[in-house]
């Protein structure tokens, strides 16, 4: 039954391998193999192939929702990632890299299987993602155990960095940097005395809104929590009206933010509306209507694209026929770091991880450099404003 027994196949040099004559002999062989070689096998995961410089089929993964209700966000990011990889591949003598998608659909329960698959696929040298905080909690421990670097372009939960995962990095400021900035903008720039703070009970929205509430202190004049998917906000609007607040902060995503804004305005409530980077999407304007959305403030720990210089916006528009969406630039930045590492010859997971740790170069959204927890060390929070149905940069919010 056994035709050959060899330990060094060319295509998979790092593993001990026993070749079988027919697949049907599998079960029988299985028993022999585990009886005979259990003690002898060691994990030879390291070195060996690194000397080659550019491993055949080298790849970086993208981990996020590409189908399902959150597919828009995931595709925005993946387009940014692909753009960076294509630009890298087009360089002369570049080590050709592909993008392997891991479509989590944004569901935490799919994450462990996909993350295991990514870890098992030795051609995957690094990852962009996971995109959301929920799936990050499932997938990141696996990446940490396997030493596979994962740079998230969009998961902003502050607690993610506190788990001691060596492989965790993110290219955008977390909610702990955005929250105080939003509060400072509301009290200093808008001069609001009473602020009504609403969240959507999601990990992201509630986490951020709680930080804003703390930062506002006495200026926080009322609270409410809505549900994602809720459409009728009449009770919320009644609460805002009753509170006599002169600003509303909403922590959550653009669908509910847009609807709430619309129903506020149609009910005759003209209070200034301030929201977060999860609502920084044209969907906000679509849902609310341009007239209702006029003057809305959006805070975001991201540089306006034109401030970053470079040709990212033009390149992206040329490649996909639309302007970059939410987190496209972050996806591009995260992939750029990995590409720079591969270009510098770091083609094992170990080397690439070490490279990312010490990376320090300007990116599209900010200076890309990480502190020891994997957080970006240089975060600027900007305020954006909706004018004539467009989201335009307003001003940088200086730490107060």
């Amino acid at each position, binding site marked *: 039954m056994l035709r050959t027994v060899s330990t060094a*196949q060319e*295509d*998979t040099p*790092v*593993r*001990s*391998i*026993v*070749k*079988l004559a*027919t*697949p049907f*002999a*599998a*079960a029988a*062989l*299985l028993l022999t*193999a*585990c009886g005979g*070689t*259990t003690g002898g*096998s060691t*994990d*030879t*995961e390291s070195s060996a192939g690194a000397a080659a410089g550019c491993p055949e089929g080298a790849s970086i993964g993208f981990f996020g929702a590409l*189908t*399902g209700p959150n597919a828009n966000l995931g595709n925005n990011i993946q387009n940014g990632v692909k753009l960076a990889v294509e630009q890298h591949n087009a360089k002369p003598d570049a080590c050709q890299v592909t993008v392997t998608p*891991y*479509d989590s*659909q944004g*569901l*935490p*329960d*799919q*994450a*462990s*299987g*996909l993350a*295991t*698959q990514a*870890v*098992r696929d030795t051609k995957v040298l690094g990852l962009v993602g996971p995109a959301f905080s*929920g799936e990050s*909690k*499932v997938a990141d*421990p*696996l990446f940490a*155990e*396997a030493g596979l670097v994962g740079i998230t372009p969009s998961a902003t*939960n502050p*607690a993610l960095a506190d788990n001691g995962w060596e492989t965790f990095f993110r290219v955008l400021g977390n909610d702990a940097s955005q929250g105080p900035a939003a509060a400072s903008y509301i009290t200093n720039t808008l001069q609001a005395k009473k602020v009504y703070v609403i969240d959507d*009970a*999601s*990990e992201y929205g*509630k*986490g951020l809104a709680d930080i804003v509430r703390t930062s506002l202190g006495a200026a926080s004049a009322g609270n409410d*929590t809505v*549900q994602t998917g809720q459409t009728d906000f009449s009770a919320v609007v009644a609460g805002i009206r009753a509170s006599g607040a002169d600003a509303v902060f909403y922590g959550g995503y653009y669908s509910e933010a847009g609807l709430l804004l619309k129903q506020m305005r149609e009910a005759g409530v003209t209070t200034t509306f301030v929201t977060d980077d999860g609502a920084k999407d044209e969907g906000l304007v679509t849902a609310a209507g341009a007239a209702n959305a006029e003057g809305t403030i959006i805070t975001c720990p991201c540089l306006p694209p034109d401030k970053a210089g470079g040709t990212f916006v033009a390149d992206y528009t040329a490649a996909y026929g639309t302007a970059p969406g939410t987190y496209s630039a972050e996806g591009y930045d995260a992939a750029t770091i990995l590409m720079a590492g591969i270009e510098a010859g770091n083609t094992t997971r170990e080397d690439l991880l070490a490279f990312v740790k010490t990376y320090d170069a300007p990116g599209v959204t900010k200076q890309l450099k990480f502190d020891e927890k994997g957080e970006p060390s240089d975060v600027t929070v900007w305020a954006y404003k909706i004018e004539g149905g467009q989201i335009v940069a307003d001003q940088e919010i200086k730490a107060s």
Partner: protein
Amino acid sequence: MSTSTTAPARRPARRTVGDRWAALPRPAKIVVWVLLALFCYALPLLNPPLISTPQSDFGSVMFTVAAYGLVALGLNIVLGYAGLLDLGYVGFYAIGAYTVAVFGSLHGKLPFVLLVVLAVCITTASGLLLGAPTLRVRGDYLAIVTLGFGEIVRLVFLNTEWLNGARGITDVPRPPDLPLFDVPQLQWDGFVAYVDLGTQSTFMEFGLLDGIPYYWLALTVIIVVLVADVLLQSSRVGRAWEATREDEEAAELNGVPTFRYKLLAFAMGAFIGGLSGALYAARTGVVNPETFVIQLSVLFLAAVVIGGQGNRWGVLLGAVVVAYLPERFREFAEYRVLAFGLLLLLLANFRPQGLLPPRRARRATAAAAELAELEHSGSAGGDTKEGGIRA
């Protein structure tokens, strides 16, 4: 009287696979069962091409399939045996998962075995609490009440700060390790197999990166539940359920305390749902309210209805269809709900017994067919066909 008499009368069945199987001697049956079980245990190690999932880790997918299989067995008791449509079954699954997470990580550090016991106790209790008042309402109302229950459970988890709200709970304890020996996996290059000594699964070590030991655990639980299920269904309780489902009033008149048996079915379903939820939490290490959406309930329901309510093998097949196919064909993931919708619609209209109808239904169909034939030949004035009604 019976739900199955709606099927069109057919000619008496010839010797089917089932009949041949029934004719096998007992030792031969046991050998086949053991071989089948061994094959199931070995499946994720064999990693067979075409069957293995190319885009997600096969061992992890197999665990999900097993977890759904367990849920389907539980829901089958409620829906298939007792005929109660429960659209909020996800609630029990969620309570099981959260019990393990809350008392194993968030508000306590109980040992794993105790956690599982606690999880099934709490879910069973919640099943009794929900069932006691609601099982008296009409069947289709029950569907809506349980739907509400499932949503309430999720919303309470989401909005309760003591349960960490939307953040969910991390660091859920894993089952205790019992490392005995390593088993290598097979890798395939086309149809040629390699034994991959680089990727080994330790029996039984519950690590992060290896879904296979969790699958083995879940499969073992399934086998235990199956045995209990067989014993239960052929017992007095099983017959009481059948009588209640087919005609509640007649059953009551014949002295079957139908309410008590319905409550028992509800509690047992909750028990198994909670058990499955506990295993799920231990595997993922994280629980989160957004996992337990009502769509999951519908998926569980789809598994039972597609497979064949009332047939334990059918519902396991249904669980495979519901949990495995979307992972195998991930590129069609977007069409998953549409496909299940179409399947439910088609099955309800053309094959309400599901893919694998329960033996009772097959028996009843055969009986009905023979009756029809007898009547037919009787009215034609011919002599009676030989062979009585095969029981």
